[in-house]
């Protein structure tokens, strides 16, 4: 068993707003192994992006990490000084964001911004920084990298900007790359190219990837393991094949049933999850999914389920689980 590249333990990140305390991330734990591709899926407001930002201590006021540990090479990122975090940020753990246009500085050339990322962590002669920037742009398959390195972001297309962001993320050969909805703003054909690029980088450089997305299809094409988040919690976790084939949490199951699939010939009604995600200032009692769950039992209303083992390497936070919910002979209690 290899040592995890990153361990998140009971992470709680809260936002102290005028209306009350938003429990955005509420007790999230997971391990990321070297070279692994981990998907974190969930809807807006489920805490997936805040989890990612917490790992790099990028959560902004009024948000704060109030509990938990984030262990990287044995050190806890939560308790590090700002200087120590800055050492890791962009060097060992890099992050790319959804919207490449607003993450790039419009008045600086793409090359300058990549060089900046390199020079933030190493003293290198500017000639070398430039040639490294060109090399990185080639690696992310920007055509004519030698000349495009001097372009400004607006001269790049959306897909090229995201490639440039990835190049910047890779500048210091990080062991972990966190990609927050990297393809959401892109067209499908460009999305396919970016996913292929991330897959190759993972295989060639052995960079571990945390992919944050709401798109189940994107997870299926890139990740080996998945965390499903709902209302600030991990509700299910496991290998990608298990999660897609035998999801045990009703939320995961419903989510998979609610998306129209290109490969199904049936024109059936989609399953819809009634209601909408809860207010995280006053989350529901018991299981947070219970107001929307069609399989709930009495226990779900007051007793909050922890993550429990439900299959090989698979955990779900549910008292019922889909195995029992779909069992024909009324094995369900309650």
């Amino acid at each position, binding site marked *: 068993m290899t040592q995890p590249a990153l361990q998140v333990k009971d992470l709680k990140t809260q936002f102290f707003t005028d209306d009350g305390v938003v429990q955005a991330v509420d007790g999230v734990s997971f391990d990321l192994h070297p070279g692994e591709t981990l998907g974190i899926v969930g809807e*807006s407001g489920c805490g997936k992006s805040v989890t990612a930002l917490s790992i790099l201590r990028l959560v902004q006021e009024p948000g704060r990490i109030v509990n938990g540990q984030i262990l990287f090479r044995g050190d806890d990122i939560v308790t590090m000084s700002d200087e120590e975090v800055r050492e890791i940020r962009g060097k060992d753990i890099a992050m790319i964001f959804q919207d490449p246009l607003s993450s790039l500085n419009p008045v600086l050339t793409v090359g300058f911004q990549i060089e900046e990322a390199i020079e933030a962590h190493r003293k290198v002669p500017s000639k070398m920084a430039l040639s490294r920037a060109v090399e990185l742009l080639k690696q992310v398959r920007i055509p004519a990298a030698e000349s495009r390195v001097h372009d400004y972001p607006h001269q790049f297309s959306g897909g090229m900007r995201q490639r440039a962001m990835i190049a910047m993320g890779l500048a210091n050969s990080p062991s972990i790359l966190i990609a927050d909805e990297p393809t959401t703003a892109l067209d*499908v054909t460009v999305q396919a190219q970016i996913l*292929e690029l991330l897959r190759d980088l993972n295989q060639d450089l052995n960079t571990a990837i945390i992919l944050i997305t709401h798109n189940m299809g994107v997870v*299926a094409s890139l990740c080996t393991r998945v965390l499903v988040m709902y209302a600030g919690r991990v509700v299910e976790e496991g290998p990608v094949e298990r999660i897609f084939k035998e999801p045990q949490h009703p939320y995961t199951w419903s*989510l998979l049933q609610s998306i129209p*699939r290109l490969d199904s010939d049936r024109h059936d009604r989609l399953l819809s999850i009634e209601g909408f995600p809860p207010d995280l200032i006053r989350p529901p009692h018991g299981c947070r999914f219970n107001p929307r769950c069609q399989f709930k039992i009495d226990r779900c209303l007051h007793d909050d389920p922890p993550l429990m083992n439900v299959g090989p390497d698979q955990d779900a936070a549910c008292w019922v689980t889909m195995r029992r919910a779909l069992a024909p002979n009324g094995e369900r209690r309650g």
Partner: protein
Amino acid sequence: MAERTPLLRAEKVVKHFPAGLGASVKAVENVSLEIYPGETVGLVGESGCGKSTLGRLITQLLPVTSGNIFFDGVDLTKLRGEKLRQYRRQLQMIFQDPYSSLNPRMTVGDIIAEPLENFGLLRGRAKDQRVQELLKIVGLNPYFNNRYPHEFSGGQRQRIGIARALALRPKLIVADEPISALDVSIQAQIINLMEDLQHEFQLTYLFIAHDLSVVRHISDRVMVMYLGKIVEVADSIEIYRNPRHPYTKALLSAIPIPDPEIQSKRRIVALAGEIPSPVNPPSGCRFHTRCPIAQLPTPCADQEPPLEQKARDHRAACFFSEKVPVAV
């Protein structure tokens, strides 16, 4: 299908936008299409392909540069003023962004009542009753009429937008990316609602989206657009099983299927390069610069392939449509 008269027919519709220095963006180029009563036609393509512009031309929110749009046999492009306004009742639109498409200073009741007032249809209690009825139809509490848009979630706002579109009992609704701003679990609610409403009120939809899996689910027929042109039209199951245009094929293969086992076996038809500029589109077939099966320079770069019948109810604009590989 051949005997039926289309509800809407577009003939050689062109839309150019001025782009300065005498240049123009050729957003929609020579598009002809028919939409039959009661059907849902999906219109897909990537950003910048002209699909939203085409939707706006059809609803008369934008004037055509040339071409004709017949609705119930009447050429809308020839109508002006009050005559055109009366036709607008029949053509309504649902927008992508449920935030910017609702006036934040108006109550939900006023938003839904506005079309009724514009056409002087109902007043006083009758109007209020109709608003409450519309709220109920789209699955909202009828007593929400005094609330403001900011009090609602994205999915609820989209329902308000749908109620507004239904207020005038239109025949055709153009829905421009109606679910792409919504969360996954909410998307299914809105798709199901739109399907229910279609049956209840005999609506005809033009459903514009970039997500081919959603479009395929809701549509009877699908049209694929590339750089201002329709490149393929077919029945929604047929287009997936048997795409006849290499662009459709590439688009289909790029959509990830939420199943890791199937996904790992699929081959993605990677397209070379980027979408060319619509200011200066490529000669001949507009797709030839990125096409994996193009024969250059003749005929693909110097002749334009017509949108022609390739099979029953299946048209594609490609010289080599028989060479397009079959689905996954």
